C-alpha cells in the first residue's frame, strides 16, 4: 500500500495510496462527510465495514456504492450524493 493514486471528488483531485478504500482516501484527505440525508444532514463513515450504509457515494456514474467497501482505483470519478439523487 504505497503507490500513489489520484481520484476526483466532484471534479476536485484527491490523492491516496493504492489499496485504500474510497472512504480511506477521503478521510485521509480530511473529508469527513460526502452524503446528505433526506433532511439535508451530512453523513460520512460510521461503521466502516459495510453495515450502516451511511457512506454511500457515486463511483464512475454508479450510485449508492459503500465507500468503506470499495477499493479506490486510480482515475476513479467520485461524486457525493444526496438521498434524492440516489433514489
Amino acid at each position, binding site marked *: 500500500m504505497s503507490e500513489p493514486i489520484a481520484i476526483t471528488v466532484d471534479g476536485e483531485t484527491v490523492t491516496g495510496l493504492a489499496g485504500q478504500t474510497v472512504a480511506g482516501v477521503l478521510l485521509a484527505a480530511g473529508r469527513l462527510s460526502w452524503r446528505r*440525508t433526506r433532511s439535508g444532514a451530512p453523513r460520512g463513515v460510521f*461503521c466502516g465495514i459495510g453495515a450502516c450504509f451511511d457512506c454511500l457515494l457515486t463511483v464512475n456514474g454508479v450510485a449508492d456504492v459503500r465507500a468503506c467497501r470499495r477499493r479506490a482505483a486510480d482515475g476513479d470519478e467520485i461524486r457525493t450524493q444526496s438521498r434524492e439523487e440516489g433514489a
Partner: protein
Amino acid sequence: MTHVVIVGAGPAGLAAAEHALAAGADVTVLDQADVPGGQYHRGASHRFEALLSRCTWWPESTVWALEGKRVHVLRGPADGTNRRRHTLEPDALVLATGAHDRVLPFPGWQLPGVFTAGAAQALAKGERVAVGQRVLVAGAGPFLLPVAASLLDIGAGVRAVLEANPVRTVLSGWSWRAAAHVGKLNELVHYAGKLARHRVPYLLGRAVVEARGDDRVREAVTARVRADWSVVPGTERTYRVDALCVGHGFAGQPELAVAAGCVLDGGFVRVGLDQRTSVPGVFAAGEITGIGGAVAAAAEGAIAGWAAAGRTPGRALLERRDHARAFARRLAAAHPIGAAWPGWLREDTVVCRCEETTYGDLKSAAADPATPGPHALKLGTRAGLGPCQGRMCGAAVAELCGGAERHHRPIAQPIRLGELAEPKENP
C-alpha cells in the same frame, strides 16, 4: 467428495476451512472482502495464502440469497454493476458471517466524526488512517482497548477511554485464571501498558451521553453513570474532540442464517454441540452464534468445518470451544448494557439513522393503539426501512418499543435491479 461451502473468511470461516480440508472435503471459501482474515486479521491476509491455495477461494463474493443450501453469489467489486452471477449447490454450508459493532443511540451520534469503534480500528489497521487527532473512545467492552491501541499506533491522540460499566461489574466478570487460560492476559497487559505510556486515562462508570457540533462532531459530553447506566446529574464533562469512537458491544450478522431458515435465539443462530443449525446441512460458527471473540470463533469454526465434512468432532476440539465460550460468557457479564440507557435520549434524538426517525416519533407510535406490533411500527415511523434495513437501529428500536427485534431482511445484501433481472449464470 463432500463439497463444503464456507461463507466468511474471518477466524471462524478460516478454521472451518482448515478442518474441513483435514477431514477430506472439497472446500470453497467465499468472502465479501478481496482479502481473507475478516475484521480480526485485518492486514494479515498473507498468513492464509497456504490454506486458501488448497481451497477454492472466492474473494469479492457477495452472497445475496440462500434457498436451503443453494447459495446465490455475485462476484465483483462491492456494490458494482455487472458483477458475475453464480449459484453453488454444496453438500454442506458453514455460515461464518461475523458481527458488527452495536452502538446505542445518543443525541448527536449521527454527526460526521462519530465512528463505531470497529470503524476506527478498520481504518487504523487496514488503511493507516487516523480518524482524528483528539479522539475519545467510549462505550462498553474489552474491544475499546485494542481500538485505542491501534489509534495510538498510527499517531492519533486519544483523550481517554471510557467504559460505562462500574469497576465492580467489570471485575465480577473478569477472572485472571480464565483469562490466562485462553491466553488473553498478555493482551490485556499489553493494552494497559500502552495506554499508561501514552498517559491515556481509562475511566470506568463514565459514558458519552451527547455529541455536539454543527456539520461535524466538535464536543463530546460525558457523564458519570450508575451500574444501570442512569446518568448521575451534575457529573457532565465536555471534551473538545475531532473524533468520537463508540461501541457498546457487537451484533451478529445473522441475515444469511435467517434466509436459510435457521432458528435464532435472541438474535443469535441456535446451534447444537457440533455447530449444526436447525436446518439440515447448514452449520454456523463464530459471532453469529453469540459474541465471543476470535478465539471462540476459531474454536467453533474448527468444529463446524469438521462436522460439515461429515466427521464427528473429538473431545479436544469440543473442550477448546467450551473453554473459549465460558470465558466469553464471563466477559459479556463484565460488560453488560445498562437498562437505563434510554435516559440519554431526547425527543429529537435520531434513533434510526437512515430514516432519521426520532425517539419522539417512536414513543408516540408505540403508544398509539392503532400501531400494534413491529410491522405497523416500522411502516408508521419508517424505522428500520432505510438502506441498512435495521442493522444499526434494530436492537434499539425493539428495546424502546417493547418488541422483539426482527432479523428478517428479504435481500441479505443489496443487489442492483439489473443484476437481479440478468438471467445469465456464470459457469
